[in-house]
């Protein structure tokens, strides 16, 4: 097995749509020019967490000049029943969560639409609700995790091994509810023409959006997502607002309807990362060899739609131990449904596991890097398969050298500089490398260029650019000879930009189509020559475990008097196969690392259990890392040749960047201060004495 020859791959080709983005002329779903004046949709949202709508008075709203329609469950078009309750928009009177859409105004202007929505009077019969996450309260065993993995796993006899282990470390870690908050709020522009819906949607997968809408409306649907202003998981599956917009547009055939969520609605209707409490139990011999690893998770989910964060998932593959267990229990709440958020499972789960490993290292009096190296597995610890490549130890060694790890005294609270306690910490992580089936790539030679069409999504990761590079190398031509067409259901189907599998899936498909093209036409095609291919199966998928790995290093400064936490330095070292475009990869990995910093220091959605509402529902109160929070952030990678993952030899890098960062920062904060904080985010008060 070898990976394909690279000429363009491995070079930093600039983003193809860069000029459109710096001038703001790239059209996002809310920017698209449409034929005719677009009507503005403004929703009316439930003010109770659970119950029934008993009445809606729309008279005052409907009477306002400029209002075209007020839609409620009583008169909205019927949708085809599906198994996703989130999509049953305005179909009945049930309220599942506060903020749920219960009516919508269509008006000629956004000012009038907002005014009219405020005039709609909704009455409710409120039912008792539960919206506070209590990990010690009533839980249930989910049948499956959000990523399709089983909820529990067990090898050997973990309880007996814990009882017998010479060194035991047990602790509980908690991670809060967090919201994705891409800069572009979810936006939909929809027009029905002759029974067919044309939809501009901020989506990580136009085809998945099309399938969902076509099923719900039993109609032909076209979805276009040429540019997407960030996704991070929340724009994977369609949410209620998109369905609401297409539903409302159906009542005004021929007129475009536009709905861009407000920032506050981004905390109410488009999913989030649910809170977890993680009970870690590690048992080791005195030389640091792990005997047992147990990761027992309790996580929040929604009562009306289950999504269980697979926080224990990566613990199944990180370290060797003969006895092991992961388990997940869920607490059902009357909230909007949680969903995938950048590194679902791995991001919060690595906080539990990697802090616990740090605590065990302290217990053993061992360097935390050496503890991890000692427990490096030969094969996947639960599946028994060899890894196609596994760079964890090399990432740790490379990072330690580059970071100057050995220059630090391992004793906590040993470096005070100008009133700030400084320390360093390490956290590791992994993210699986897989390939989604179901894409088709079409290559047509026309006008001296190869047009490569596939319904991929560019959400900022650079799909347009890297697919151009892949196609160029697979066809043996310059990137200037390639024109990539993506982001629409008017080109052949593409799988979603998710699971860090976009480039692997679309790229493998493009390579397959290119191989067929060259087989048929050689290197001197005629105008109109054409080939296509579906995503090939990976013949090695059952032979090897495949994943990217990382080692994250943080230097943290904690103010001796105020407890303020800063992160002057982050270094991430990644083993992710061949890096296809170093500049774009560095941007994406650094971005992931800053997500980790933001998770460590800032992010927490706070629910008021009296009302079931996220009370810090804006950027003034829900803090995401700003420019001044970020100092020296460096992402580097090891040389890793993996001929098994895909023809490009590339593993996904969209998510692994965040994994392990929060643990590295918490471990560094412990090293700086001697204070162990097991709950995110790390706020000042946790570091104040007394």
């Amino acid at each position, binding site marked *: 097995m070898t990976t394909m020859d690279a000429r363009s791959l491995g070079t930093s080709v600039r*983003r193809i749509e860069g000029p459109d983005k710096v001038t703001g002329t790239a059209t996002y779903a809310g920017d698209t020019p449409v034929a005719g004046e677009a009507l503005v949709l403004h929703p009316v949202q439930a003010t109770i967490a659970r119950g029934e709508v008993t009445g809606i008075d729309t008279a005052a709203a409907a009477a306002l000049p400029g209002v075209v329609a007020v839609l409620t469950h009583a008169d909205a078009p019927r949708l085809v029943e599906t198994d996703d309750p989130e999509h049953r928009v305005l179909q009945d009177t049930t309220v599942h969560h506060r903020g749920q859409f219960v009516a919508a105004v269509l008006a000629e202007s956004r000012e009038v639409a907002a005014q009219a929505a405020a005039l709609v009077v909704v009455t409710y019969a409120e039912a008792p609700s539960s919206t506070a996450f209590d990990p010690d309260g009533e839980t249930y065993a989910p049948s499956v995790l959000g990523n399709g993995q089983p909820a529990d796993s067990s090898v050997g006899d973990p309880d007996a091994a814990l009882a017998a282990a010479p060194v035991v470390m047990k602790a509980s870690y908690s991670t809060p509810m967090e919201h994705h908050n891409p*800069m572009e709020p979810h936006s939909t522009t929809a027009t029905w023409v002759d029974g067919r819906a044309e939809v501009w949607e901020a989506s990580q997968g136009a085809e998945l959006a099309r399938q969902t809408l076509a099923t719900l409306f039993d109609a032909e649907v076209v979805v276009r997502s040429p540019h997407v202003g960030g996704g991070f998981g929340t724009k994977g599956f369609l949410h209620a607002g998109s369905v609401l917009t297409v539903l409302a547009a159906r009542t005004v055939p021929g007129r475009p309807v536009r709905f861009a969520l407000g*920032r506050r609605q981004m905390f109410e209707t488009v999913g989030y990362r649910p809170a977890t409490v993680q009970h870690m139990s590690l048992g080791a011999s005195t030389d640091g060899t792990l005997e047992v690893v147990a990761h027992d998770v309790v996580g929040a989910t929604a009562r009306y739609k289950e999504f269980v964060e697979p926080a224990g998932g990566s613990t199944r593959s990180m370290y060797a131990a003969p006895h092991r267990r992961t388990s997940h229990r869920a607490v059902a709440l009357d909230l909007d449904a949680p969903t995938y958020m950048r590194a679902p499972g791995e991001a919060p789960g690595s906080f539990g596991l990697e802090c616990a490993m740090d605590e065990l290292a302290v217990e053993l009096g061992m360097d935390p890097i050496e503890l991890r190296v000692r427990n490096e597995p030969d094969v996947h610890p639960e599946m028994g398969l060899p890894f196609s490549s596994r760079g964890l130890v090399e990432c740790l060694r490379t990072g330690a050298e580059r970071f100057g790890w050995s220059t630090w005294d391992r004793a906590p609270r040993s470096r005070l500089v100008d009133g700030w306690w400084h320390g360093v910490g390490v956290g590791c992580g992994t993210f699986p490398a897989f390939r989604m089936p179901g894409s088709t790539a079409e290559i047509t030679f026309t006008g001296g260029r190869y047009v490569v069409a596939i319904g991929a999504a560019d959400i900022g990761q650079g799909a347009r650019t890297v697919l151009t590079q892949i196609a160029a190398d697979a066809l043996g031509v310059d990137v200037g000879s390639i024109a990539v067409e993506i982001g629409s259901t008017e080109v052949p189907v593409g799988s979603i930009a998710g699971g860090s599998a976009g480039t692997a899936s679309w790229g493998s498909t493009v390579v397959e189509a290119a191989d067929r093209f060259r087989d048929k036409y050689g290197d001197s095609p005629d105008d109109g020559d054409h080939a296509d291919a579906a995503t090939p199966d990976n013949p090695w998928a059952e032979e090897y475990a495949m994943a990217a790995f990382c080692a994250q290093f943080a230097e943290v400064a904690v103010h001796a008097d105020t407890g303020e936490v800063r992160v002057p330095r982050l270094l991430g070292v990644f083993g992710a196969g061949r890096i296809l475009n170093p500049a774009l990869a560095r941007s994406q990995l650094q971005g992931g690392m800053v997500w980790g910093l933001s998770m460590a220091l800032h992010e927490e959605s706070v629910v008021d259990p009296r009302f079931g509402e996220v009370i810090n529902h804006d950027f003034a109160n829900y803090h995401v890392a700003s*420019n001044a929070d970020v100092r020296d952030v460096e992402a580097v990678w090891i040389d890793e040749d993996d001929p098994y993952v895909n023809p490009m030899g590339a593993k996904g890098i969209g998510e692994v960047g965040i994994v392990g960062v929060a643990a590295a920062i918490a471990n560094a904060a412990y090293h700086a201060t001697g204070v162990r904080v097991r709950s995110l985010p790390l706020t000042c008060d946790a570091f104040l004495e007394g």
Partner: protein
Amino acid sequence: MTTTIPLSITVDGEQRDLAVDPRTTLLDALRDRLGVTTPKKGCDHGQCGACTVLLDGRRVLSCLTLAVAKDGADVVTANGLGEQHPVSEAFLANDAFQCGFCTPGQVCSAVGALDEARRGMPSAATADLTGPVELDRAEIAERMSGNLCRCAAYVNIVTAVEEAATR
């Protein structure tokens, strides 16, 4: 219909006449009424910076600016600056964006911030309030912190602004 008020503004060098609901923000006037979609709406609360434009030469949050209050104003968006502008070029050269949604605001904000620094205006990160502003990375990061980037291109944004400052 609601009462509308006429006004005239210059947008990227072109005079535009329109009549707006007095509640209309400059951002909505640009996007909904004039079809100028370069400035983006990320929060509508002045908390993210995606809507930043240059208004009579200064960077402002167009979502917190009422259109009717700006009759006769000169508005420049990132599109008006163009991809040849030193700041835009530096953003392209340093891959200072990913999804691109916050980028037009970042570019306008950077142009405004560089001008403020040249005029000697201090920021919270400025140590010496009496001398000329030295634009080191911490100073640039502070001045660009009104523009959130969830893709977190911050490291490259600072490099781009640092580079543009020397041109």
